[in-house]
């Protein structure tokens, strides 16, 4: 399974991505989470200690004069698989988390790490892991190809007008010839029975699952805990488990 979560800021991508990764890992599958948000957050939803650690600068070398290609690349002899082994952090349920580091100052400080992250994403051994990607809010990264590793893109949508406007734009990822095989909506924080129908009508996307507004999940977020640890029996975590089952069925040949 290779999925990427996209959506408007605050829609709940990280909480859902973190929960999905943990649920999938509990079925005994190897899961690698790739976090391309320069702001912290996903680690907490996964139940990992928050860390700024990304890919160290010495994992990369700078392009020599006259050479083609990106300015930085993984140092000679360091494959994507080896880089994951070295730099992805292990957490609960043996989920691995790879991130390009977190921003505290100008983005230039993460330049080497970002280049390495790109290369790793492009050269990932796709059969080794189930991949769960969490992109930052908005359209920038999705339309610059940051979700191209994914066969399924999940657009997390709050059933508000603003949420649907963002989702309509993100739905155009499906028009791209390098776009995902499937692009689906996940309705989040649903409070009304007709939310899924409204989102389908408003975005043109099929709704894979509707996650209800869930006070237990909101409480987990307030406490900085992973939903699956703080509220394993909540309706929201149950909805994510349904999504995992659905994706697993869809991923069968």
């Amino acid at each position, binding site marked *: 399974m290779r999925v990427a979560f996209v959506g408007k*800021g*605050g829609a709940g991508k*990280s909480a859902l991505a973190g929960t999905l990764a943990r649920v999938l890992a509990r079925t005994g599958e190897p899961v690698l989470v790739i976090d391309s*948000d*320069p*702001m*912290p*957050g996903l680690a*907490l939803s996964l139940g990992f200690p*928050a860390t700024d650690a990304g890919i160290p600068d010495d994992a990369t070398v700078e392009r020599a004069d006259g050479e083609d290609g990106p300015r930085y690349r993984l140092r000679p002899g360091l494959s994507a698989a080896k880089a994951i082994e070295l730099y992805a952090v292990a957490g609960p349920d043996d989920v691995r988390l790879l991130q390009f580091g977190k*921003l*505290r*100052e*100008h*983005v230039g400080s993460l330049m080497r790490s970002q280049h390495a992250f790109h290369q790793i994403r492009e050269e990932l051994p796709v059969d080794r892991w189930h991949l769960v990607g969490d992109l*930052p*809010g*908005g359209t920038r990264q999705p339309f610059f190809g940051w979700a191209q590793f994914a066969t399924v893109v999940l657009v997390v949508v*709050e*059933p*508000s*007008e*603003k*949420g649907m406007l963002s989702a309509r734009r993100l739905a155009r990822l499906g028009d791209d010839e390098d776009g995902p095989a499937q692009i689906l909506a996940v309705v989040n924080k649903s409070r009304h029975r007709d939310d899924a129908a409204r989102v389908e009508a408003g975005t043109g996307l099929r709704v894979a699952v509707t996650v209800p507004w869930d006070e237990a999940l909101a409480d987990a*977020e*307030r*406490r*900085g805990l992973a939903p699956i640890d703080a509220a394993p029996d909540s309706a929201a975590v149950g909805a994510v488990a349904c999504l995992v089952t659905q994706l697993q069925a869809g991923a069968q040949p």
Partner: protein
Amino acid sequence: MVADLEAGIGTLTRLADGAVDIVLIVVEPVPKSMEVGTRAAAAAAAKGIGRLVIVANRVRDAADLDAITTAFPGHEIVVVPDDGAIVEADRRGVAPLDMAPQAPAVQALSALAERLVPV
């Protein structure tokens, strides 16, 4: 002039000197949000951008406010209470000020506007 920047601190770190007079950092009483807000406050302070105001949003009770005041000691903090009217306005796609001008959150924002630009 009022600018609504992208989430995170990327735009903030690229602002030119003197581009803004006041930075409003909107923070919810959840660790993820407070961590990003702390980074934004540090980045704004490092650039020496004018007045910094922490807008504590979706505050439900004293414990929520306490979490934010603890995370931002010594900062000017303005509270916007958790308010179902804002959720409903968003759902309908209308401006909260038009739909529910008397709602507590809208009142708090009106007070903030007057605080920033006294009438």
